[in-house]
């Protein structure tokens, strides 16, 4: 008798139900939607905003089919593109610049499916259209820039300490200092060593000159590289937000590259401009003499007093600022959130480079009690990030901004201060643009080839192995369903090679059933009883199926770890398909066969195609 224990049947049913639930979101199609997301990391998206947006849409008489609030933003689904476009305009106008309003597509699947994270597969750029950029961060430039700062720091330090050097310069990524006398050099080394812990200081004499060569310590170099990459990523994220893309991806790729993916973007020229643009940070004094209510009121009405400029911060608080720029953002070598040393309050720590520090020291000496504003200028729009009061003269370029700040605010301010500029130049080293029509064509072709192949395969197998063939085809359908369910659950990116992998994997997965069916036939030919033939067929085939799938899996995994972009998609689908095929081809098909024949006391003949020929004609 061939029967599965109840728990095994139950397990199969449960897995099939789960598979079914996670597959169906792919069949509901998508509707036009509008997505509201924060333009900057500092803007919060919450229920209040949802309510406000809902009101805006209601006032405008735009029917919302569904609204979702998730960590990325708020999404509104509409019945047609016309409403969608109107809703986008209305929201953009009413909500203002703090938010990115983007057009998107949203699945029509019922809400309870989304609630259990049953979402449709994520389509890759080659299927939905869009732009993919790979940007290379010029790390050498970042290190050169860092070394330049050390040259300035060292020069300033030696001057203030009265160390008499002859010349200081940067050669490659090292600082060289020349001295006239060996004695001065020898005295300078321990002092510099103590003051500049980031540098490895060695003496090196050549051609009658007494020299010091200072190089970046490896860990410092690593820190500079990481910092440059992180800062560039942050900056890119802020810029991408401006493009109004629904689901942009900005992430690190390797040690010195950044991937930027902008689904649905067609205007690549604009995208390139925005990604390559430089924003700047300015440090300017607040004109305290003119900052009285009367002047502010006048300025708001368009009568800005002579010699000052009216700017607002994010909360809308106005400032009257002097026009002279004290410092620009490239003098800020680092901005980190932290805590004030004396009070323990949340604070932002700024590090200025040598020249920046000198200028800052002088300005703070002359302006104790006044405010200094940090202004972010982007897209020709200036905004005050923060305007702290100068308490004392600040030497050494280590600035601490604290007071009435929460930890989150400190973090956001540090981010904004860093976000202005790119730490190092970047270059586009790879671009892939897929137009929307090609994307749609790709989906259609991919699906058509899968279905056509599947149909041909199903007909052939059903004819060749009769009832057992039908069971094999059902197992193959289950395989496809589970594969789609897994891909949807993992939200793996489906690409055109991925669709090809679905087709190919199904074509390969049938191997398991062919092996089993051939084995059963062979057992029957050798005169085994039907029930025993089923048992033997499945058992003997299992080892072979396992071995052959593992070798295929090795290839797929290697492809995954070495491949990039679309090839990864292929490898993911291929690997998952192999795993699901073991379950469906062996366990599910066995359960079906057991259900059909396993409990029958007497099975005369198995419908697996004619095996009688072997007995009919004995060997000549």
């Amino acid at each position, binding site marked *: 008798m061939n029967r599965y224990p109840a728990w095994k049947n139950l397990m199969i049913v449960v897995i099939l139900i789960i598979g079914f639930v996670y597959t169906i979101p792919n069949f509901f199609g998508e509707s036009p939607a509008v997505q509201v997301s924060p333009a900057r990391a500092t803007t919060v998206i919450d229920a209040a905003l949802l309510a406000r947006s809902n009101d805006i849409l209601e006032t405008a008489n735009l029917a919302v089919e569904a609204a979702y609030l998730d960590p990325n933003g708020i999404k509104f689904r509409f019945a047609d593109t016309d409403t969608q476009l109107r809703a986008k305009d209305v929201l953009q106008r009413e909500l203002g610049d703090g938010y990115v309003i983007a057009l998107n597509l949203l699945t029509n699947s019922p809400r309870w499916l989304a609630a259990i994270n049953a979402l449709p597969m994520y389509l890759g750029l*080659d299927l939905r259209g869009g732009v993919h950029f*790979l940007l290379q961060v010029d790390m050498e430039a970042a290190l050169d820039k860092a070394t330049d700062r050390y040259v300035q720091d060292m020069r300033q330090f030696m001057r203030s300490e009265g160390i008499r050097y002859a010349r200081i310069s940067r050669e490659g990524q090292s600082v060289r200092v020349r001295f006239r006398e060996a004695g001065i050099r020898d005295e300078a080394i321990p002092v510099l060593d103590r003051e500049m812990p980031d540098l490895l200081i060695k003496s090196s004499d050549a051609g009658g000159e007494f020299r010091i060569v200072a190089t970046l310590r490896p860990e410092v170099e690593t820190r500079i590289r990481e910092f440059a990459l992180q800062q560039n990523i942050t900056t890119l994220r802020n810029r991408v937000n401006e493009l109004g893309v629904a689901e942009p991806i900005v992430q690190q790729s390797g040690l010195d590259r950044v991937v930027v993916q902008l689904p649905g973007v067609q205007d*690549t020229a604009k995208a*390139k401009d925005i990604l390559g643009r430089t924003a700047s940070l300015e440090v300017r004094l607040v004109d305290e003499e003119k900052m009285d209510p009367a002047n502010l009121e006048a300025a708001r009405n368009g009568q800005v007093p002579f010699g000052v400029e009216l700017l607002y911060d994010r909360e809308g608080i106005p400032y009257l600022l002097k026009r002279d720029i004290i410092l620009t953002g490239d003098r800020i070598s680092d901005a980190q959130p932290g805590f004030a040393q004396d009070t323990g309050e949340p604070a932002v720590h700024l590090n200025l480079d040598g020249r920046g520090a000198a200028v800052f020291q002088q300005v703070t000496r002359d302006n104790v009690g006044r405010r200094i504003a940090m202004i972010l200028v982007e897209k020709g729009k200036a905004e005050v990030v923060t305007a702290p009061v100068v308490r004392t003269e600040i030497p050494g370029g280590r600035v601490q901004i604290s007071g009435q700040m929460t930890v989150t605010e400190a973090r956001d301010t540090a981010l904004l201060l860093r976000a202005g500029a790119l730490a190092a130049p970047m270059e586009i*080293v*790879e671009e*892939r*643009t*897929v137009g929307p*029509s090609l994307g749609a064509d*790709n989906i259609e*072709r*991919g699906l058509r*080839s*899968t279905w*056509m*192949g599947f149909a*041909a395969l199903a007909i*052939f*197998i059903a*004819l*060749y192995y009769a009832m057992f063939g039908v069971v094999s085809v059902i197992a193959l359908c289950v395989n496809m369903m589970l594969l789609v369910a897994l891909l949807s659950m993992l939200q793996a990116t489906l690409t*055109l*090679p991925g669709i*090809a992998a679905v*087709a*190919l994997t*199904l*074509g*390969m997965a*049938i*191997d398991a059933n*062919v*092996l089993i069916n*051939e084995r059963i036939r*062979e057992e029957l030919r050798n005169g085994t009883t039907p029930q025993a033939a089923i048992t033997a067929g499945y058992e003997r085939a299992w*080892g*072979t199926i396992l*071995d*052959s*799938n593992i*070798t*295929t*899996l*090795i*290839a*797929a995994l*290697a*492809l995954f*770890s*070495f*491949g*990039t972009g679309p*090839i990864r998609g*292929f490898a993911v689908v*291929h690997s998952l398909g192999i795993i699901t095929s073991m379950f469906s081809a062996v366990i599910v098909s066995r359960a079906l066969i057991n259900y059909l024949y396993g409990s029958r006391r007497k099975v005369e003949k198995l419908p697996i*195609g004619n095996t009688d*020929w*072997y007995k009919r004609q004995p*060997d000549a």
Partner: protein
Amino acid sequence: MEFFRIRKDIPFMRYALLFNIISIATFVLAVGALAFKGLNLGVEFTGGTVMEVNYSASADIPRIRETLEEAGFEDAVVQSFGSSQTVLIRMPTRPDVSGARLSEEVITALRNDNPGVELRRVDFVGAQVGEELVEKGAMALLVVSLGIVAYLALRFEWKFGVAAILANLHDIVIILGFFAFFQWEFSLPVLAAVLAVLGYSVNESVVVFDRIRENFRKMRKASVREVINNAITRTMSRTIITHGSTQLMVLSILIFGGEALFYFALALTIGILFGIYSSIFVASPLVLWLGVTREDLLRPEKKTEEAVV
């Protein structure tokens, strides 16, 4: 329905030498094609720009060439792609223009000539990224090969691992040989297909090897040669049906999958056909010649007992 009604074992091993000569000849031809013609590597590997543009009416290729030449892109290669309306433009990397800007200049030039042109696809790959991909691709091939040898050595014996990988690398070289000989474009999806074939056609060898092992156990009196012949004969039906099924799918991709998947499917087709051939006519004779014996696979039980003591 049953296609293969074979009663007697087919004496495959008798012809082993002949098949190996055929294999070696094909292999040498493939290596020759690779050496003299080389692979026509896609833009992913060489670096450069490929643009696919679509015209509302039939594209006038000579005119497009002229337009591009006038705009200063003398090195652009223009060819039709799939349909008469679609055109593929290839350009090598240029030291003076950033690759990302190049495609924009080209499309602007084409648009000035004919506003009905639609940009369907741009692939730009910097030279360094391309070099890295070649490196990564070769690395993937190496890792897959070693992984498979290691697994088969563990599950069977080293002779099987070596035989399987030799047989399958022979398939790979032949696929590459075809691509070199006909100068078909070797792109990233083709590399994926080649690696998939490597994993897939090892399946084939594994199925035969499994049978060989089983036969060693069952056919106590038979010679190694007979054991192998029987194993191949018994798995023959499965081999053809499985490969036929996979090929049905691949054929469907080949016909309906469009230009993007055409060479991918073509590589798979060659791989599947040679996969059948190599596992039967190359891998098994190799195992025989490497001198496989019954004892290699069926380890005496005593050893483990001794180890316990």
